[in-house]
C-alpha cells in the first residue's frame, strides 16, 4: 500500500497485531518486500505467517513440480491432480497465499535462484532460502551483502524432525525500550561463509551437535553433486567417512559428531508438519522483528529437535570484532 497512513481496512484487519507491535511497525511491514525460495513445508508456514502479518510483497521462487512428498507437508497445495498438474510449486503456493490476505502482492519469479544478479536482490528487504546447496547459500548471501542497502538474509532447513535457521543481518542497529529509557543496541553478524569457516575447535564445548551434523551432511551433498535432500541411508558410510576427514583436518575429536545423529538425518529428509509450523513460526517472528526494527533478533543460528522439543540458539561468530 502506498502512502504513509494505514487504510481503514488495514486498521480493522490488523487490529489484534497492532496491539502487539504498534502502528509504526505495521506501516514498516506494509512496505517490506520479501523473496522466498524453496517452497517446502517450513517455508510455506513462514509465508503464511508473514502474509497474514501484512507485508508489502512476497516473491516466490520454486520451479519444481508437485510430488507426493510435497503434498504431505504443504498445506497450500490442493490435493486435486486436476488443479495441481502442470503447475510449479511456486505457482500453486502463490494462488493460495493470495487468499490469505488480498492486500499482499504475492507473485512468482521464474528461473534459477543462483543466476539472479545483485540488482535483483536489491529489490528486496528480506531474502529467505531453503533446500539450497552449500555453494548456493554462500553465493546468495554474498550477493545480498553486496547490495548497498541492507538485505536481511535467512536460510531454513528441516531434516527428519530437526530444523535449522541461519540469520545474517550484517551490521544491525536497533532500539530497545527499557522502562523509561531507550537503549541503542548494535550487533555484527558474520556472513554464512565466515560463520561456517570458524574451526569447530574454537566453538564452545557445549555447541549443539545438530550444527556440526548439518555441516557434515551439507558438505557431503556438495561433494557428491547432489541436490539438497537427495541423500539416503545408503550414503551413511560415505557420510561417516567425510565426517572423519573433516574432523581430522581440523584436529577435532570425531566423537563430538554422533554417528547416530548423522544416521537419523540421512535416513529421512522429508519434513514433519508440526516441526515445520514451529520453525515457520519462529522464522516469521524473526523477519517481523528485522523489518520493524523492534525486539532482539536471533543471532545467528537456531536449532529445533522434535524428539526433545528443545530450541537452541547458537552464536557461531568470531569473537574478535572487525574480522
Amino acid at each position, binding site marked *: 500500500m502506498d502512502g504513509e497512513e494505514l487504510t481503514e481496512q488495514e486498521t*480493522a*484487519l*490488523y*487490529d*489484534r*497485531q*497492532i*496491539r*502487539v507491535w504498534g502502528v509504526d511497525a505495521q506501516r514498516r511491514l506494509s512496505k517490506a518486500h520479501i523473496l522466498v525460495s524453496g517452497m517446502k513445508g517450513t517455508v510455506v*508456514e513462514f509465508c*503464511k*505467517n508473514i502474509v*497474514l*502479518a*501484512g507485508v508489502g510483497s512476497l516473491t516466490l521462487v520454486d520451479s519444481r513440480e508437485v*510430488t*507426493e*512428498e510435497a*503434498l*504431505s*507437508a504443504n*498445506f*497450500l*497445495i*490442493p*490435493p486435486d*491432480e486436476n488443479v495441481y498438474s502442470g503447475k510449479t510449486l511456486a505457482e500453486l503456493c502463490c494462488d493460495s497465499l493470495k*487468499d*490469505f*490476505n*488480498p492486500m499482499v502482492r504475492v507473485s512468482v519469479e521464474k528461473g534459477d535462484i543462483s543466476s539472479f544478479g545483485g540488482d535483483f536482490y536489491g529489490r528486496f528487504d528480506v531474502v529467505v532460502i531453503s533446500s539450497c546447496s552449500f555453494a548456493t547459500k554462500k553465493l546468495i548471501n554474498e550477493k545480498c551483502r553486496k547490495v548497498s542497502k541492507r538485505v536481511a538474509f535467512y536460510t531454513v532447513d528441516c531434516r*527428519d*524432525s530437526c530444523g535449522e535457521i541461519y540469520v545474517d543481518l550484517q551490521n544491525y542497529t536497533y532500539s530497545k525500550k527499557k522502562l523509561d529509557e531507550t537503549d541503542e543496541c548494535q550487533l555484527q553478524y558474520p556472513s554464512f561463509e565466515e560463520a561456517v569457516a570458524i574451526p569447530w575447535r574454537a566453538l564452545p564445548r557445549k555447541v549443539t551437535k545438530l550444527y556440526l551434523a548439518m555441516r557434515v551432511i551439507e558438505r557431503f551433498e556438495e561433494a557428491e553433486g547432489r541436490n539438497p535432500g537427495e541423500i539416503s541411508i545408503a550414503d551413511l558410510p560415505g557420510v561417516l567417512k567425510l565426517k572423519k576427514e573433516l574432523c581430522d583436518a581440523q584436529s577435532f575429536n570425531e566423537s563430538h559428531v554422533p554417528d547416530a545423529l548423522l544416521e537419523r538425518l540421512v*535416513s*529421512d529428509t*522429508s*519434513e*514433519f*508438519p*508440526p*516441526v515445520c*509450523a*514451529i520453525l*515457520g*513460526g*519462529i522464522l*516469521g*517472528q524473526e523477519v*517481523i522483528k528485522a523489518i520493524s526494527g523492534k*525486539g*532482539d*533478533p*536471533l543471532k545467528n543460528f537456531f536449532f529445533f529437535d*522434535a*524428539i*526433545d*522439543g*528443545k*530450541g537452541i*540458539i547458537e552464536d557461531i561468530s568470531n569473537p574478535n570484532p572487525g574480522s
Partner: protein
Amino acid sequence: MADSTAHVSRSRDLDKLLLRPGHLVGPTFEPGPELRDDLRKFATVLVVGAGGLGCELLKDLALSGFKNLEVIDMDRIEVSNLNRQFLFRLQDVGKPKAEVAAKRVMERVSGVNIVPHFCRIEDKDIEFYNHFNIIALGLDSIEARSYINAVACSFLEYDSDDKPLEETIKPMVDGGTEGFKGHARVIIPGVTPCFECTIWLFPPQVKFPLCTLAETPRTAAHCIEYAHLIKWDEVHSGKAFDPDDPEHMKWVYSEAVKRAELFGIPGVTYSLTQGVVKNIIPAIASTNAIISAACALETLKIVSGCSKTLSNYLTYNGAEGLHTKVTEFVKDMDCLICGPGVLIELDTSVTLQKFMDQLQEHPKLLLSKASVKYREKNLYIQAPPVLEELTRSNLNLPLFDLMGKIRKDIVHVTGTTTNNDKKTSCLRKLRVVFKGIDGATDMDTAGGA
C-alpha cells in the same frame, strides 16, 4: 494412484517415529505398522476452539495423519480474526468458525474427517467428551479451561490404592497465547497436575475498586471503565451496554475522553477503549503457529506413546529474543477436580434433595442449582423443563437407594458456584460414602457389576 504408494510417502516422516523403538519412548510403546495404521484409523481427537490456536491445531493434526477430528466453537467469524485465523476469508465473516474451519481443512488434506460443533462447550453432554482419545484446547479464557478440565478429570477413577485407573485417564493438551508469549502444557489427569492444581499460577484478575473509578482515577483505563460501568447506567438506565454496537462504544469513548480531560490523564484512545471494554487479547499469527504445533506434537506423542512427552508445562516468550522453558509442576493431592473427589459422608436415609442442599453449604463446594449424575444416569437435572419434570420425583428418594444401595461410589454434580463475586458454572466430582454399611461391598465390585 495406488493407495499403498500414497501410504508410504505420506507417512514417511511419521514412520521414523512410529516404526522403530527408541530411547525416549514410553514403556508401552510398540513400534510397527499397526501402530501407524491405528493412529490413522482409530484415534479421535477433539479440538476445543476454532480460533487462532484451533485453526493451526486442525491443520497440524490433519497433516500429521489423524483421520478423525472434531472441533467445537460457539463463535462466528469477525474481521479482526483474519490476521491469524488463516482458514477464514473476508467473505466468511458472520459464519460459524467451527463449520468453516472443518470444511477448509478437509478440502486441503485428503482422507481426514472433521465434524464441527457450533455450540457452547457446556451444551454438550459430559459423555460426548468421553469418546475422544485426547482433547486439545485452543481456548481464550480461564473459565472455559476450568470447565473442560473438570469434565476430563470427571472420568478419572482411582483404585483402592488411590492409583489412577489407566483406562479412565483422559489426556489433554492445552495451549494459550497473548502477543509474543505463549504456553503449551500436557495434562494427564491423575498423573500430572490438572488445570485447577496450578490455578494459583494466574495473577489476580485486574479489577478496579469502584472508589478509584468514581473518585480518584489515575489511568486511562480507569476513565474508560468509569464511562463503561458507572456513567452508562446513570444515563441509559435499563438499557444493556452492547460492546459490539459501535454507537455504544463511541459513547463510552467520548465520556472517557471527557473524564480524562477533567483529571488531566493522557492516553484515552478509541482503540484502548475497545481493548479495555471488550478485554481484547493482542494476537499474532506466528505465536499461535508455534504453540499449536507444540501441542500437536504432544498430541501425537501421547496417542502413540512414541516419545517422552513434555513434562509438563512449556512457556514461550518471543518478545525479547527467544526464550522457552519447560517446568515440571506437581499434582495437588487435595485437588477438588483431579483428586479422588470431595468426600461426602451420608446416612442412608438422606434424600436427594437434602444431599443437594448439603452441597450448597459444603465449604469446598458452595454449589447451587445442582444437577446430579450417577454413572450414566441423570438423578436430577435442572433444565430443560421436560427433563426436570421427569427427574423431580427422585428428589424425595434416598440417595442410597438411587445409587443401588452400595457403600460408596463417585457422583458428578454440575451447578453454579460463586468465585470472587462471579457466578460460574462448574462440574465437581464427589466421593459419596454411606455410613454404617458393611465394608465388604466396595467400589470395585459395584463398578464391575
